[in-house]
């Protein structure tokens, strides 16, 4: 960007248009730039900046939509600290995030390595990407059917293999793992493609040298592939964690928070407080907390895993 601005040819075409020269010197292209960013700026201000500020403000108020927001200071936050449903939602979401990291990253890394070894064709990558292009709602309903307790095909197989049927959505212990499985199914191929792109970027001569040094396949993987992949892996991790913290769609259309509170994840709890119970202040306060958690997670991952540095240089 800076280089572009300094590009010798990018000086105003002074010779050709003497008239607007003065204004160009003083303002650059400011006026025309304002024209170009005007629509985007409207969207930015009214649907990102103002709502962010308003959301923070609302978290300090009592507001049930009908009247005006009433300032109550930190009351929402102190109530949240004592709210068992909030802590439950945090625990449940944490479990979901953890399972996603574990399943998704491991499976995707494995898949990416497989693709890198035996097949790089676009068709294979496309087939693996297909679930990601489907909406969460579609993924949820598809598995809601396949995992049905009575006549779902998966439970048919489980029964045939002599095991007891599993109430994937109906039991408290399975509800969250099932949601994580659906999400893993939807994201596995996408994540694998991201990692695959990272693998493709590792130059071949690095492996060549390792080979000459007599490194085993596992040593090469641990000492070369993983360190060189670190930026991609950190990115994948950040995206997975931030995305999973905001799980909502699949829960909303399948279990709706249940059974009991087993899938009442943070975003679903916010939705319930704000829209079902018309408690916008309380909902906003939980949203602020979620925002802070996500910011912290991103910060920690970037800082300690040094996601923006590669060992390749």
């Amino acid at each position, binding site marked *: 960007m800076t280089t572009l601005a300094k590009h010798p040819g*990018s000086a105003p075409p002074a010779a050709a248009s003497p008239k607007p020269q003065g204004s160009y010197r003083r303002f650059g292209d400011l006026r025309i730039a304002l024209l*170009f960013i005007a629509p985007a700026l409207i969207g*930015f201000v009214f649907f990102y900046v103002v709502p962010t500020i308003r959301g923070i403000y609302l978290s300090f108020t009592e507001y049930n939509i009908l009247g005006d927001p009433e300032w109550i200071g930190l009351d929402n936050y102190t109530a949240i600290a004592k709210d068992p449903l909030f802590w439950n939602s945090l625990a449940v979401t944490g479990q979901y995030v953890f399972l996603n990291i574990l399943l998704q990253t491991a499976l995707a890394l494995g898949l990416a390595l497989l693709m890198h070894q035996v097949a790089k064709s676009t068709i*294979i990558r496309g087939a693996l990407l297909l679930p990601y292009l489907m909406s969460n709602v579609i993924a949820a*309903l598809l598995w809601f*059917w396949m995992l049905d307790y009575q006549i779902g095909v998966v439970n048919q197989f489980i029964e045939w293999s002599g095991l007891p049927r599993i109430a994937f959505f109906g039991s408290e212990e399975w509800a969250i793992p099932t949601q994580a499985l659906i999400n893993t199914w939807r994201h596995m191929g996408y994540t694998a493609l991201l990692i695959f792109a990272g693998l493709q*970027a590792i130059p071949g001569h690095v492996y*060549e040298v390792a080979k000459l040094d007599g490194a085993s396949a596992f040593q090469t993987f641990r000492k070369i592939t993983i360190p060189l992949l670190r930026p991609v892996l950190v990115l994948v991790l950040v*995206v997975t964690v931030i995305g999973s913290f905001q799980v909502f769609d699949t829960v909303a259309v399948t279990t709706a928070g249940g059974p009991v509170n087993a899938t009442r994840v943070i975003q679903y709890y916010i939705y319930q407080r704000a829209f079902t119970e018309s408690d916008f202040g309380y*909902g906003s306060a939980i949203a602020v907390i979620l925002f802070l958690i996500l910011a912290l997670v991103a910060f920690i991952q970037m800082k300690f895993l040094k996601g923006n540095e590669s060992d390749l240089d």
Partner: protein
Amino acid sequence: MTTTASRATMPAGTRRRRPFNARRAGAWALLVLAIAVSVLPFLWVLRTALSTNNALASSAASLLPAEFTFGAFKRVFGLQSPAEAVAEGGSGAAIDFWLYLRNSIIFSSITTAGAVFFSAMAAYAFARLRWKGRNAVFSLFLGTMLVPPIFTALPNFLLIKNLDLLNTMLGMVLPYVFMTPFAIFFLRQFFLNMSREVEEAAMLDGAKHLRIFFQIVLPNAAAPIATLALLTFIGQWNEYFWPLLVGSQDDVRVLQVGLGVFKSQSPQGAPDWSGLMAATLISALPVLILFAAFGKKIVNSIGFSGIK
């Protein structure tokens, strides 16, 4: 990038010389398994959608449709009478996926067209124009990617409500139609790498920025703009949370929300599985068609956003 990198690994070529071995076969088997897990559920959905509910219960695992019928599709498109629908295991509640399909197309098309066009304009200003504060403003725009959608959804809902736009298409598209941070980021990259010479030649001709933008920059960036439009459209098509909040009434309800409603209408004891799967397939179909037509573009775009 991908092609050059794979070519670079070729000289290493150890695997080429190696004959067929068990490890390679095992790798293929695992890959095929992963593909099966990704793709087969869709065939199962199709098979279910073409079955009757009564037959589904008795032959739960037969690979072909149980009692082949288009009844589920008719039901979902509101072509069955309530009595017929109930007889085939439906809830009998009125459901019209034509309407939801139309709403989804309108919603996704308007937001995609607006977001891509306005983002292209902004990206041009961020990449090709020189003005004070450009980088700072761009960083602020990018920063919005960090704000979780749920956080802005609550105040945005209140704004749309105050504007009296709940359950209108305008209210649904407003937050998306002006820009998406990703679109600006994506297009800016391409505009930055464009050759300056053509632009300068046009400037010497006395062409103004608007003409340069429309006649030179946009046509030259047709390929990335098409990719971006594709990705944006699919994303908008799959959007659930915001349309759920703002467009819950029938006349603006989109497919994803309609699916959720249809599912919850199913009586708890015996859901209308074939109807639900037919509806799911209809909701997935436009994306499947786009994928069949432009799969390569979509696949090759993965990895752009992340790494560089």
